[in-house]
């Protein structure tokens, strides 16, 4: 079985996997980082979004071995070491950007990349930018509000250490 090594949330992670093991399976089943969710098997829902080398990707549609040597950040890696939430997480809480919370980790990970790539994010950009994330509770209105607030808070801040 292939051995795979990568950096996950700033720490080295190594494990034995099969060729067919998906990154999300490695994260959830072997590293026990269960914040990353699986909501579909068609690569459409975005519940599984993590960052690989700074880019948001659907971790259900990349093999663990394809992330060999990469820097991976999951939802567990966003908050500061003392538990202070990342500004995007804080904005989701403040603006009721979640109902059942199943889609939330993916939404937050997509939103962090979106905000980082686009200074002065507009509502239209948020709606387009979250095209790959589905909310089964359909709470999009507050999600968009949260992302706009989170993006503004991120701009007022220096980039967090883990990101």
């Amino acid at each position, binding site marked *: 079985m292939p051995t795979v090594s990568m950096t996950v949330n700033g720490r080295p992670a190594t494990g034995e996997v099969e060729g067919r093991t998906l990154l999300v399976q490695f994260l959830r089943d072997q590293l026990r980082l269960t914040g990353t969710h699986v909501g579909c098997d*068609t690569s459409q829902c975005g519940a599984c979004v993590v960052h690989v080398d700074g880019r948001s990707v*659907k971790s259900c*549609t*990349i*093999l663990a*071995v394809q992330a*060999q040597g990469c820097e991976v950040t999951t939802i567990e890696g966003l908050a500061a070491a003392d538990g202070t939430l990342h500004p995007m997480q804080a904005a989701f809480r403040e603006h009721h950007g979640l109902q059942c919370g199943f889609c939330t980790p993916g939404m937050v990970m997509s939103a962090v990349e979106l905000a980082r790539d686009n200074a002065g994010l507009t509502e239209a950009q948020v709606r387009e930018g979250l095209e790959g994330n589905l909310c089964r509770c359909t709470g999009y209105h507050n999600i968009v509000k949260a992302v706009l607030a989170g993006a503004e808070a991120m701009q007022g801040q220096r980039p967090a250490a883990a990101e």
Partner: protein
Amino acid sequence: MYEFAYHRPASLAEASALLTGNEEARPLAGGHTLLPTLKQRLAQPSDLVDLGGIAELKGIREEAGGITIGAMTTHGAVAHDQTVRRLIPALADLAEGIGDRQVRNRGTLGGSISNNDPAADYPAALVGFGAVVRTTAREIPAEDFFTGMFETALEPGELVREVHFPRPDRAAYAKFPNPASRYAVVGVMVAQRGGEVRVAVTGAGPSVFRWTDAEVALAGNWSPAALDALQVDADGLNSDIHASAEYRANLVKVMAKRAVAQIP
């Protein structure tokens, strides 16, 4: 997903050696078509040859006034590249409209055209601009490359290296996206280069095709109104849960007019 042996060659020669003579081996690019297919157990390759470690397959460069793009270049990289934006903005627009951000961060030009999904966007750009596909064996004009539904001129073991896009004088792409996946129900690229006008249609038929009546009409009168009197024959067009053949036939005309209207 059935188990397979995974390989990550560092060069094109090594990748070709792994694929040649092994009919059960498949190249892996961004994986955004192949991995969902494997999850459904619709295919069972013995070996996956990951092209992600081959530096020569990545990148975008200016060539002979046009643009050359490596097979492993992601849709996102094409959408945000300054050279593409400056020389062929319609190509950047098309790439920006593929799927969603995460699909664009992984999906590649080479994977998209090798797969030749009838609803894929890139085939309209390749045929619309008269692009050339450069493989490990030869150069193939776009019109000869796309041969049918999910079929291309690629031989077993042959890999797409890069695609060269000549620069059109003016061009625009309009698509009617499936609201869930963003794949093209119908997408139309209109392009003009010197005296030649091309109207390339994806999504509507089994594979990309040129709407020649529209090309003639636009060559004489570059305006949406030039297409008013034309009809597209629904015979042979795709019909599925998303749209009937008749609906698609009408969409071809509507999208072509919208594309022309985008160009000043």
